[in-house]
């Protein structure tokens, strides 16, 4: 290795299972129907995921529905505790401490200052009845700020960055279109300048023209803030546009990874070849 970089995030062996597991399915991927053990019915939503996210890069994760992408993202954002595995962040305890073993206060701090999350479903990421500005203010307050004037300024700046006019700041996201809700989520996720942005299917379900706008916004954010992004999508076209490197997931496991153009032009695995060929 010639480049000596410290990853922003390193995950090792992340496993999330629903069910107790049995001797037929623990530690082995045969004897399963997709991610489900034929003998005991346990679902291995993610099974032994390891990855690194480097400074300033977009790491894409692509895979069909049910492959475990959302499970990975929500485990990272402490929505539940994984069955096994560890993750360290460069910006938490110098990467020495497994974030899943951190205190809940420390996990809250990480969510508010080190990572920002944009959920596929905006209901999970936004308070739909609060104003767009209050959604952002809440996030800023959570990180410890008390200065109301600064907060309003920052909210305006963030909403402006995602092209939501300040005249709509005091409106509630429930009145917004899907594309606008995603943009409010993005500005909220960016509120405290996190080092890592988690994006779960940000463009899924949006009209094509709105999709293009959101993708464009993500590109600008990357260039402007030099932030690292973990970008999850079932849509290879989205990954192609944004990701520097790409990981392919199937049935809870990583089956292939590489430079995004290499994954697209010279895919190695049967599943990836099928995925790529259906794109053209």
């Amino acid at each position, binding site marked *: *290795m*010639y*480049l000596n*970089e410290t990853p922003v995030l390193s995950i090792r062996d992340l496993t999330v299972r629903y069910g107790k597991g049995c001797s037929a399915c623990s530690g082995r991927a045969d004897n399963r129907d997709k991610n489900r053990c034929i003998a005991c019915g346990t679902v291995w939503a993610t099974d032994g995921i390891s990855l690194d996210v*480097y400074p300033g*890069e977009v790491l894409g994760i692509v895979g069909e529905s049910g492959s475990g992408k959302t499970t990975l993202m929500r485990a990272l954002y402490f929505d539940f505790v994984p069955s096994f595995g560890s993750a360290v962040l460069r910006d938490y305890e110098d990467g020495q401490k497994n974030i899943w073993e951190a205190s809940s206060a420390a996990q809250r701090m990480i969510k508010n200052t080190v990572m920002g999350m944009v959920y596929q479903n905006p209901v999970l990421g936004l308070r739909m009845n609060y104003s767009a500005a209050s959604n952002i203010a809440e996030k800023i307050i959570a990180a410890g700020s008390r200065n109301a004037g600064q907060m309003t300024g920052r909210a305006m700046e963030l909403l402006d960055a995602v092209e939501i006019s300040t005249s709509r700041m005091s409106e509630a996201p429930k009145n917004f279109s899907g594309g606008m809700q995603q943009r409010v989520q993005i500005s909220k996720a960016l509120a405290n300048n996190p080092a890592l942005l988690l994006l779960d299917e940000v463009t899924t379900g949006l009209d094509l023209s709105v999709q*293009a*706008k959101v*993708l*464009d916004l993500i*590109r600008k954010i990357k*260039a402007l803030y*030099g932030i690292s992004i973990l970008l999850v999508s079932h849509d290879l076209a989205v990954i192609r*546009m944004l990701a*520097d*490197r790409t990981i392919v997931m199937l049935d809870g496991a990583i089956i292939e990874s*590489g*430079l995004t*153009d*290499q994954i697209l*032009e*010279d895919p*190695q*695995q*049967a599943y990836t*070849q*099928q995925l790529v060929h259906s794109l053209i």
Partner: protein
Amino acid sequence: MTKTTEILRITNLAKSFYLHNPGLVIESCHDINLTLLEGEFIGIVGRSGAGKSTILKCINRSYLPMRGDIIYASEAFGPINLAAASEREILYLRRHEIGYVSQFLNVMPRTTAKEHVMSALVDQSMDAAGSEVKAEAMLRYFQLPESLWGIYPATFSGGERLRLNLAHAMVKEPRLLLLDEPTASLDNKTKLLVRDILKKLKGANTSMIGIFHDIEFMEGVCDQVFNINEGRIAS
């Protein structure tokens, strides 16, 4: 003074593709050996399907080489084997040292010609103002009319596209430039312009490997010419 510094040495490069469905191996190139000196221009010719693009894509690592070494004398890393380097190292080299140009456009949606060229510099962490100045200089150098700078390039002619691609690749001042049939589908006048541009780049000590279907036209620019036939160097 004789030029003797090697910038790229390929030994025994081989690439095949395994297509799982229908279970088929495609041999694309094998036993490829070549050495490029700093400031040199290597021309590659051969029939369609001979394996020419495969060689360039292996150097660029858009394809994973199966066998062989591609030793590149990197400014940042020293000698590095592109066939085995880490993904992050390849990304670094693409950003700073190695450029790849084809006749095809590879531009993000909603990006103007000037923004496209600027993006290569923003990727190098240059600030917006600095990259704008440099991007404009590069567009001027490649003679892309100023009236086109603010336009989405999807509607550009073949020649305009190529000049934009060259500007995008060259604005980061790569030491090694890979050219995959840049002159395909250009009219003669534009081809002459491209040849002049490549001559100028060579004069500025850029090392290049280029595929040309009409190599006669590149006479006087090439230092070596390799003819690829069925995946091998024939001459």
